[in-house]
């Protein structure tokens, strides 16, 4: 944004809202005024409790759900404004993997069929070459060629997530949006997938948008971390700084809740009270009701985003939404 | 396992139980119903939907119409062949020398039954004007009458009356009540069959008050002057009770044409001098299902039945002449009546694939094809399979029930001749490749379908490819009628029930101007035939007229316009406790008033109870 390097993906003031279906129609704002930047080969982690809008943001970036306003710019071009052909091209460069590896592979298709589907769709290579590319991708994620003719239910959980990753790799993307990719895996397998992701970034220069509720995993791999609360990015900062010197009260409480000594069993976030419903967001700062440091203004005025780089020794690119930093 | 299954299984079990219980109930009820009066329980295989005489187009309706209402004429109860007799009229009509003016006097002192339709609820006297009204009513489009055709183009001024909007206050010159008791009918041209038409249910006399009072519901509120009154009517049964105000006319064996040699065995003699109607109550059960009707009869719940063909095997001990098995003969009288009508399969002459063709060569080829089909038809087998071999096959269109029927005529038109048929086909260049597709229409019922399949197998014997004989099926008779009346069917089988015993009634089936939607469903149109028909239609019965009819018959046979025909033999059974003789079908129900039922009072109920437990 300001460091001069061209960003791979820039999100500006993105708003995602749903019309809820049901007896009473109402509008749910899942993502409110979100801006973020992902650099080439960067790993951008998005953390937050469930229901905070992480998944909506990820899906809006993937153009799986429409955004109400704001911009998603990929390689300098706005994704929502693209026509079909352009979008199709762009999709080669943005791939996705999801949380449940069993559910993310089509159950009645072999691994090979799943792997070659994007190649068929993007018309990459000939039939023979596609199989080679698929085999290469399997090798990259550390799976044996013999897996190709298997069905997803014949694989173990870790193997499945590797296969899903392999599928995301075949079209040689620039960005992979990974929505909670490791949260359903055993810790030992988690570690190996994390290692794999780091490897891919290093060797193939793939950037990741890594969505997770698990700070301990994020700590292991992210370059930049953004903390989401009720649709808003309350704090965005380089990973090291965020973990060592959090600025937002919410981030602080999150970090306090993680027993760092035992990353194998991350405890749930402990905060007073329930997060408010996104259907009826509170006035003022959305966090004010649970905030230990709230001041009077918090309940009436919603804070804007401020760059606190340099304040109290903060590094570059540290932004926060909090009245405490606004003075 | 699917839980729905168990539910279904349960429903079956209960239904089965309910069925058993229901049938038990029914029997007890019918036994309990017997009371202290004489009763006759008739059965029919179909039900009328209306009791309005204007709708009496079939036997079922006619039966009720002539018993609830009066017609001017009827047929003598016992005379065979049938003879007309005065009914409400006091004598046969006086006819002017030119045959155009009929003068009819009606009996005095005849009253309609009491009914709220009349001013004080008391039935009034039947007047000549009522007849005039009733006949006009046949021409009123609002009546949707079905007997109009009998008088259409016959009576001076009647058709014009309809054109002018059917105003009942407007007089019709040819249809007048000269006074309360005298009717005068003036015809456009002689119509010797007029008196016959006045013996039909259609011509029954209805009071205007009742028609106006009940509106559309007149159809189920009959108000007549006939021998019976209606007590109950629905789609399952009708109950008639004696009209106590019916005119008193003692029964005379002689006047009804009693023939002791053939009729003494029916025990009718004791009726002499008694006043009809002889039975207090007539229950008519409408049971369309052959099996159900037969079972009810055998169970003693009915006194009369027209035996379904499927039961002939069990009922008859011999075929020529039909006789009953000893067990049945002990309980029932047998009447083996040849129906007054016939069944025939017509080619649609209007269809260029099989009928007339503008090109004379093709016309000749089509005729050859029709004749070949006619020759290939196996009448004895048709008779054997569907009519138990006791129907009567005859050539042409004058059935045995007509007085003009010729017994010793050339039967080659109904004799199977496969070689002749094949020769004819090859002579006219027909072969399996160029034979047209025959579309044979029928209402989609089992028997009609089997007749079609049999027809197809007859035709395959002369090399007609099976896949070229196709069925056109219709869900109801009404749909079928619509199809052949719209000339959409190449081959249509129909039955004709005569309205009166004069061959004029059947030869008109092939009169050109009667083409569809008229009764000439063959759409046959032959100049010579039409000329003969016109000439004969105004003639009184005479050997000359008979000769003309037979000539017309020959013309139709030679043109191979129809595969015809067979008259069915009806096997009628009735209880030996009854003194009665059922009518031929065209007479339609006049015999009810002469039925004497020995079944009366509680004693009869005990009898039948004993029977049932035996």
């Amino acid at each position: 944004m300001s460091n001069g390097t061209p960003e791979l993906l820039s999100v500006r003031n993105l708003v995602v809202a749903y019309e809820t279906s049901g007896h009473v129609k109402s509008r749910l704002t899942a993502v409110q005024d979100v801006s973020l930047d992902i650099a080439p080969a960067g790993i951008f982690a998005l953390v937050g409790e469930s229901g905070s809008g992480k998944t909506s943001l990820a899906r809006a970036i993937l153009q799986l759900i429409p955004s109400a306003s704001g911009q998603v710019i990929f390689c300098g071009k706005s994704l929502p404004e693209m026509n079909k052909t352009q979008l199709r091209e762009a999709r080669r460069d943005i791939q996705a993997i999801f949380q449940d590896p069993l559910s993310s592979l089509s159950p009645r298709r072999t691994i090979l069929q799943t792997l070659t589907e994007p190649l068929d769709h993007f018309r990459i290579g000939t039939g023979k070459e596609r199989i080679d590319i698929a085999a290469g991708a399997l090798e990259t994620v550390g799976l044996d060629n013999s897996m190709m003719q298997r069905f997803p239910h014949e694989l173990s959980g870790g193997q499945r997530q590797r296969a899903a990753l392999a599928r995301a790799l075949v079209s040689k993307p620039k960005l992979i949006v990974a929505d909670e990719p490791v949260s359903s895996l055993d810790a030992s397998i988690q570690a190996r997938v994390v290692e794999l992701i780091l490897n891919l970034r290093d060797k193939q220069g793939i950037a990741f948008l890594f969505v997770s509720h698990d700070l301990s995993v994020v700590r292991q791999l992210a370059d930049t971390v953004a903390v989401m609360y009720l649709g808003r990015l309350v704090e965005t900062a380089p990973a090291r700084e965020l973990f060592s010197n959090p600025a937002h009260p919410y981030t602080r409480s999150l970090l306090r809740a993680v027993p760092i000594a035992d990353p194998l069993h991350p405890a749930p976030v402990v905060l007073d009270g329930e997060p408010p419903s996104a259907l009826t967001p509170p006035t003022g700062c959305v966090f004010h009701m649970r905030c230990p440091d709230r001041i009077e203004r918090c309940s009436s005025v919603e804070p804007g985003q401020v760059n606190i780089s340099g304040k109290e020794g903060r590094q570059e690119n540290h932004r926060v939404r909090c009245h405490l930093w606004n003075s | 396992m699917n839980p729905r299954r168990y539910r279904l299984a349960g429903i079956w079990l209960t239904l089965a139980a309910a069925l058993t219980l229901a049938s038990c109930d029914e029997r007890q009820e019918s036994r309990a119903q017997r009371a202290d009066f004489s009763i006759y329980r008739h059965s029919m295989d179909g039900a009328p939907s209306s009791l309005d005489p204007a709708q009496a187009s079939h036997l079922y309706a006619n039966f009720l119409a002539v018993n609830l209402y009066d017609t001017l004429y009827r047929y003598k109860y016992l005379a065979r062949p049938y003879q007309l007799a005065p009914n409400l009229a006091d004598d046969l009509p006086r006819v002017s020398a030119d045959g155009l003016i009929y003068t009819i006097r009606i009996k005095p002192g005849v009253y309609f039954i009491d009914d709220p339709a009349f001013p004080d609820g008391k039935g009034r006297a039947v007047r000549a004007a009522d007849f005039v009204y009733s006949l006009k009513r046949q021409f009123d489009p609002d009546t949707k009458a079905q007997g109009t055709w009998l008088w259409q183009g016959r009576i001076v001024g009647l058709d014009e009356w309809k054109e002018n909007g059917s105003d009942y206050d407007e007089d019709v010159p040819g249809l007048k009540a000269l006074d309360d008791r005298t009717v005068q009918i003036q015809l456009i041209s002689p119509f010797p069959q007029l008196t016959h038409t006045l013996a039909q249910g259609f011509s029954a006399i209805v009071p205007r008050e009742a028609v106006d009072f009940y509106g559309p519901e007149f159809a189920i509120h009959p108000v007549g002057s006939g021998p019976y009154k209606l007590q109950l009517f629905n789609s399952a049964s009708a109950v008639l009770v004696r009209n106590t105000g019916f005119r008193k006319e003692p029964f005379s064996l002689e006047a009804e044409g009693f023939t002791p040699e053939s009729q003494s065995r029916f025990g009718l003699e004791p009726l002499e001098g008694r006043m009809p109607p002889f039975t207090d109550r007539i229950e008519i059960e409408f049971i369309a299902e052959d099996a159900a009707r037969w079972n009810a009869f055998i169970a003693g719940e009915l006194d009369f039945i027209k035996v379904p063909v499927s039961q002939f095997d069990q009922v008859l001990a011999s075929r020529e002449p039909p006789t009953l098995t000893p067990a049945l003969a002990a309980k029932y009288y047998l009447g083996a009546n040849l129906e007054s009508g016939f069944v025939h399969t017509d080619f649609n002459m209007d269809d260029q694939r099989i009928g007339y063709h503008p090109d004379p060569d093709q016309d000749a080829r089509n005729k050859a094809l029709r004749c070949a089909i006619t020759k290939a038809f196996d009448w004895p087998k048709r008779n054997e399979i569907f009519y138990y071999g006791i129907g009567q096959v005859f050539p042409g269109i004058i059935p045995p029930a007509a007085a003009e029927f010729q017994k010793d005529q050339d039967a080659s038109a109904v004799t199977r001749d496969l070689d002749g048929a094949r020769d004819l086909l090859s002579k006219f260049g027909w072969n399996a490749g160029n034979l047209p597709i025959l579309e044979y229409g029928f209402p989609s019922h089992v028997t009609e379908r089997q007749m079609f399949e049999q027809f197809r197998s007859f035709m395959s014997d002369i090399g007609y490819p099976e896949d070229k004989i196709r069925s056109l099926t219709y869900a109801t008779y009404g749909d079928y009628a619509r199809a052949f009346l719209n000339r959409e069917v190449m081959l249509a089988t129909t039955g004709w029930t005569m309205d009166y015993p004069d061959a004029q009634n059947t030869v008109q089936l092939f009169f050109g101007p009667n083409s569809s939607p008229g009764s000439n469903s063959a759409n046959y149109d032959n100049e010579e035939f039409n000329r003969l028909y016109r000439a004969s239609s105004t003639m009184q019965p005479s050997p000359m007229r008979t000769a003309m009819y037979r000539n017309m018959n020959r013309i139709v046979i030679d043109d191979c316009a129809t595969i015809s025909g067979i008259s069915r033999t009806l096997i009628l059974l009735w209880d030996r406790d009854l003194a009665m003789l059922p009518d031929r079908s065209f007479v339609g129900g006049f015999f009810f008033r002469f039925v004497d039922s020995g079944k009366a009072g509680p004693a009869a109920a005990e009898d039948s109870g004993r029977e049932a437990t035996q």
Partner: protein
Amino acid sequence: MAYLLRKSLHGLLLILGVTLISFVLMVWFGPDQTYSLIGKNATAEQIEDVRHALGYDQPFITRYADYLIELFTLNLGASNSSGEPVNRILARTIPVSLALMIPGFVLGNLLGIALGLLAAHRRGQWSDRVISGLSVGGMSISFLIIIIVFQVLLSTPYGLNLFP
């Protein structure tokens, strides 16, 4: 309120659909009474008269509208043939058919559920197998066959001859 409105709109649409289909199938393409109401030897003019009297010459919309009006005013008209108001025919016949149907339906369902429960309770035992077998067998028998069998059993000399 809006919810109620939407629900009733749904109901209305459903009723419209059902009446439309029943009209098209049973009236528009349904039995043509004309040819059972004309007599022998009818002329084209008489056929037209009957068609007119029955309203068959009216356009689709008119006939459908009439049909809807008749339905909603519960004025089912008079039977074409007998002239008896259809209302009265229904009033006369429906209680009978209901009286016949309801006990059978209720009993059948109760019995079915009881059998099902029994089978489930004794899963794997012989009674489960017998009931399952019976019901699979029952499913495989056409109603038609049952009717014919009953006819034979109850009323011919070949059966039990319960009602001679």
